[in-house]
């Protein structure tokens, strides 16, 4: 045989081999793609360190890689996490029994030492989760799979508070210099920002902050992963229009938030779907009811907001249905309480708004001594909540109809929040999600009298009712659930009757996805990869 012929055969063989390889690659890639979820959100997690920032998105993403002692089900009900069971063993002690056979992603065994370490780490300087472990005086290892937690005062909802405190591996943190969370003052970066070693259903595969974060399924997860997603590629896309375009063009499979005006457009597309639901966050207006004289207003020497009739008039002036229909395009739920459905302590019977009635409003104002109304400055953000500036504009117009001329001061969140947090405001918009998904958090932060220690920290209007304060105090240590719910109900009732704030709505969540994606929508807007399926 001539050399040419032999070469020819070899070349043909090589070519066949290459084709086969390419085919395999194509099929393999296709199979991989079928199970890769391309996810996009408005922003990004700042770090993969689960204790460094108390931010919804960061806790949501890291919550797939790490887990807490307790966890949340699809309706936010408390379920066992890394702890199998827990019970109170004394007025200030809780005992947690840990799950056996759980391993971290690097293979290390999970035990009580890791829990004690993680709770201490979450309480250290540099951690932003200190409020969640604030009641923990000490965590003790009783044996390899039992931890006893002693609290500084009776803490009936400690398990609820611990669901967001994720457990890290002590040995891994020691080996990677991640013993303390990132200290923003000194800017000490540690490995936990970029790498993760948790017990969760997904592992962190790669991290490029602000660009792309990849997760992959943990084959040795202790629990059951209902979904079929093998890999998740997360990219932040800040621009609303670009994010929608990426979904429509097929470059991403799942994203949020869908801007309200784009919901009909995406729903009209047969290949796409929008999943909507109410969020836990309640948006409301606060009023300065503490000052003797209303500062940023045209009224001198007295404070109209201290008169319940004026507050009731403002309530009656707001046409919430119109706001929900026209501005939120139906993607909101009118609220009469600062507590949303899904929050522990929510009471449906109390969640009834006072009706829209501008005539009664004008009458009440006249009775209170303001027949010609008055002028007041209204502070709102324009980039924090869904359509926040538009809602404020509508409300200002509604107030004007009854005589209250609200001068709008709309600012970006970096300016709005410092302004109202330093109480330089008479009328302001604010939103709140209780971090513990429990009403006590709402009452303690928003309604109780500010005392400088943290109570009433976000009660920026200075609302004060000693009866409610006493109830808040009692709720904190009441162990009996039924009795506790009663106390919460009473506090909510008093606050609603006295119109301490003007509740507005719970905004709607809107996730856009390809038709073949199925996911569970949590009211706290956390995303659980293990509940996502791609058909």
């Amino acid at each position, binding site marked *: 045989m001539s050399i040419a012929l032999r070469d020819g055969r070899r070349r043909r063989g090589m070519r066949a081999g290459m084709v086969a390889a390419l085919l395999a690659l194509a099929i393999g890639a296709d199979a991989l793609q079928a199970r890769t979820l391309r996810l996009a959100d408005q922003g990004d997690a700042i770090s993969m360190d689960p204790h460094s*920032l108390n931010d919804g998105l960061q806790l949501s993403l890291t919550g797939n890689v790490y887990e807490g002692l307790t966890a949340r089900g699809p309706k936010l009900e408390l379920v066992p996490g890394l702890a199998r069971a827990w019970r109170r063993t004394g007025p200030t002690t809780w005992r947690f029994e840990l799950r056996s056979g759980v391993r971290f992603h690097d293979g290390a065994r999970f035990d009580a030492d890791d829990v004690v370490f993680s709770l201490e780490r979450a309480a250290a300087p540099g951690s*932003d989760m200190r409020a969640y472990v604030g009641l923990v005086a000490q965590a003790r290892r009783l044996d390899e799979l039992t931890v006893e937690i002693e609290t500084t005062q009776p803490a009936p909802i400690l398990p609820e508070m611990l669901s967001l405190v994720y457990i890290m591996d002590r040995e891994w943190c020691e080996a990677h210099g991640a013993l303390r969370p990132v200290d*923003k003052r000194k800017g*000490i970066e540690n490995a936990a920002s970029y790498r993760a070693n948790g017990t969760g259903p997904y592992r962190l595969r790669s991290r490029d902050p602000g660009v792309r974060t990849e997760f992959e399924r943990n084959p040795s997860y202790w629990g059951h992963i209902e979904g079929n997603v093998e890999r998740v590629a997360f990219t932040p896309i800040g621009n609303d229009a670009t994010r929608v375009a990426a979904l429509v063009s097929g*470059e991403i499979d799942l994203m949020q938030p869908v801007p309200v005006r784009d919901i009909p457009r995406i729903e009209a597309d047969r290949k796409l779907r929008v999943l909507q639901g109410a969020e836990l966050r309640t948006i409301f207006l606060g009023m300065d009811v503490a000052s003797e004289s209303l500062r940023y207003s045209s009224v001198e020497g007295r404070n109209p907001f201290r008169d319940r009739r004026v507050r009731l008039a403002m309530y009656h002036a707001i046409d919430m249905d119109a706001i929900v229909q026209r501005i939120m395009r139906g993607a909101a739920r009118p609220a009469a309480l600062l507590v949303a459905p899904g929050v522990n302590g929510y009471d449906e019977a109390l969640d009834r708004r006072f009706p829209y009635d501008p005539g009664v409003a004008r009458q009440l104002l006249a009775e209170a001594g303001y027949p010609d109304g008055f002028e007041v400055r209204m502070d709102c953000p324009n980039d924090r909540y869904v359509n926040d500036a538009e809602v404020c504009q509508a409300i200002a117009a509604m107030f004007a109809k009854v005589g209250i001329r609200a001068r709008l001061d709309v600012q*970006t969140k*970096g300016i709005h929040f410092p302004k109202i947090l330093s109480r330089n405001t008479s009328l302001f918009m604010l939103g709140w999600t209780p971090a513990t998904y429990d009403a006590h958090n709402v009452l303690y932060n928003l309604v109780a009298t500010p005392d400088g220690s943290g109570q009433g920290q976000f009660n920026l209007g200075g609302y004060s009712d000693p009866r409610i304060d006493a109830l808040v105090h009692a709720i904190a240590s009441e162990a009996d659930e039924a009795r506790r719910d009663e106390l919460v109900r009473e506090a909510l009732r008093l606050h609603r009757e006295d119109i301490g704030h003007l509740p507005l709505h719970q905004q709607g969540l809107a996730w856009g996805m390809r038709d073949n994606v199925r996911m569970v929508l949590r009211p706290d807007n956390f995303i659980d990869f293990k509940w996502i399926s791609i058909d």
Partner: protein
Amino acid sequence: MIPFLLRRCGQAALVIVAVGLVAFSMFRFVGDPVLAMVGQDASPAERAELRGALGLDDPVLVQFGRFAARAVQGDFGMSLQRGRPVAELVLERLPATVELALLASILALLAGVPLGAWAAVRAGTRRAGAVMAGSLLGVSVPTFVIGIGLILVFSVSLGWLPSYGRGETQAIGWWRTGLLGTDGWRHILLPAATLAVFQVALVVRLVRAEMIEALRSEHVRFARARGLPERRVLLRHALPGTLLPLVNVTGLQFGSLVAFSIITESVFQWPGLGLLFLQAIQAADVPVMADYLCLAGAMFATINLVVDLACLAIDPRLRDPAPAAVRA
């Protein structure tokens, strides 16, 4: 030559210091960075403690003094929001923006110079008038409208090009480039085109104006009188005259592209300096903002210098300032 260089360098340094000082004074009014650094459950005591530890309560001049002292040593501080050294962040994002600006400039030149020359040669005809009207549109339509329009056409409707991100990049040392792979090229085309549209308009109008001038000049008339082919007249004699102002303008525009590609980067989620700056503004991350503005000032000053030197190289007349007294 040397005194000229020294003088220019001194001017550049002054510009940078002035920009830094202005940046620092302005940023007292952009908001509270501590808010973005801690979650809502942090107590007021914790916030105040953090503010004090970061030195945010000190007067502006003191903060600026601290910043300047460290900057001279190469330490540009920490990003408040991200907890990483700003110098590292900037170096990480620089390649993306530089590649984008470079490609946009090249596209603009490739499209603009021939178009401008053609519009000059065919000046007065209806087609040339249409080109000029089109260039006006390019200048007046906002960048984000162009960007989203291109996304709508090429990503959503046609599905040819991706709508966001940089795609796959390869590292050459510390420089991450997208230009070595097809995925990177597919991702850079739309943002570069968006940036280029404004540039093209500028280049077309400039080249056309300069060409018309050049075509009327004496040396072009003599070249034609000598019977040289028209193409040679245009390319060898008329066009080079337009290069000087073109280099000037393109150089300055490049600086502006790198410094202020914010809009385009935010539309395409391009991980460059512009997006970094935008995110820093939203989080009131003062060190990043101040460093970025100083960098922009330094870049403009440097580019100005380079452009001046390039002009010196191109135009022999500028090399030796001829004493006016020579003319008798």
